């Protein structure tokens, strides 16, 4: 049987090895030759032993939006933790929850996984089921017993997805996101960059066609 996955690029493998070495150094709390070398050996062995399917990175990292996403995320975790803590001790009992289907604009594995995980970290929402073929996540909202709460959970998921796509989404994802936002009546994000990338890709495609 033929493995249908593409081989990992050299840069990706190097990235994995570096990250594992950094974790090893952090665990041992010292940066000496012994630690780094043993970390490198262990990283290579692990990569060969557990060869995972490659994550398709988009090759794009927007530092401004990345920092904004991290700050937004930490602030939300802070606020929501105390909201849930208040829910546990207030005298009135908690309302029922609900399961909401949220359509995502992205079709990429990594982004759907990240949206799921960020939803799982922010108290008040939890992803229960993922429909990978249609890129739909089913989110369970805590204390969600009327329409506005439902819409709030949906909006939060959409916001998570928007910020993630702005930070590390591919241009294809940005286009899909802008289409979805146009449908819902919001202004598109990253317009100039998206347009530039699209123009660049169109030029590259035209050159490839002219050549071959």
């Amino acid at each position, binding site marked *: *049987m033929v493995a*249908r*996955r*593409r081989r990992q690029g050299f840069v990706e493998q190097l990235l994995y090895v570096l990250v594992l070495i950094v974790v090893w150094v952090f665990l041992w709390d010292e940066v000496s030759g012994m630690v780094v070398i043993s970390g490198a050996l262990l990283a290579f062995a692990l990569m060969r032993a557990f060869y995972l*399917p*490659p994550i398709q990175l988009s090759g794009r990292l927007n530092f401004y939006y990345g920092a904004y996403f991290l700050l937004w995320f930490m602030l939300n975790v802070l606020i929501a933790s105390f909201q849930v803590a208040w829910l546990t001790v207030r005298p009135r009992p908690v309302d029922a929850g609900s399961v909401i289907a949220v359509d995502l604009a992205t079709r990429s594995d990594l982004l759907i996984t990240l949206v799921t995980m960020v939803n799982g970290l922010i108290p008040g929402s939890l992803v229960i*089921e*993922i429909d*990978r*073929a249609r890129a739909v996540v089913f989110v369970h909202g805590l204390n969600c017993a009327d329409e506005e709460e439902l819409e709030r959970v949906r909006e939060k998921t959409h916001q998570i997805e928007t910020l993630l796509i702005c930070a590390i989404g591919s241009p294809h994802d940005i286009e899909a996101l802008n289409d979805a936002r146009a449908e819902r009546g919001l202004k598109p994000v990253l317009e100039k960059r998206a347009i530039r990338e699209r123009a660049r890709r169109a030029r590259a495609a035209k050159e490839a066609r002219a050549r071959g």
Partner: protein
Amino acid sequence: MNGQQGIPLVSVDDGMGLTIALAIGAVFLAAVVIAIVRIVRGPSILDRMIATDAFLATIMCGLGGVAAFSARTDLFPVMLVISMFGFVGAVGVSRYVSRADLRTTSRFRRMERGQGSGTIGTADGYEPSVPELAIELQEARRMDPERAARMETAGTDLDTSSMRVNADPDDVSQGHATPSEGNLDADPAAEAIADSDTQSSDAEHRDDETRGGQS
């Protein structure tokens, strides 16, 4: 990670610091006791697993507090291992409980291919060869004879059982849906083993939660 470093927050002869440390310890103790209440009461195994996770996380925070109060660093590997146990336990229990895909056993694969039936003849009649379906059949005989008749004649038709096993690739309840972006092998056996759900026996948690409400 070698013992005492830094400034200890509390020393034995400092009354105020000791009181505060004991108060914080009492709060952690209360949290742990309440989590144990849920472990004992929880109607289903998943409730108990959630409470165990909360218990372990509380212990981790408590150990962190001890590390801060006595300025010692040899507790960090303990915290790491505790968090690993919590994670592996939660994932293991949830895989045990969810029982969507029974087709990982070879008996089911053979039944699928049409070799050998799903029933074996016994003195009392036909019994399903797989314990999970046998239990279902028993229950159906007790409560819903028409469904029992259907199950017997259809030769353990999996889809009439309450376990949602559907061959629809778009079916959401399967969970592992379609392979994505061409990075999975086309081998169905590998995919079945790599599937995140394994079978579990209904008898183990039949008494766990009342199958009440509307479902």
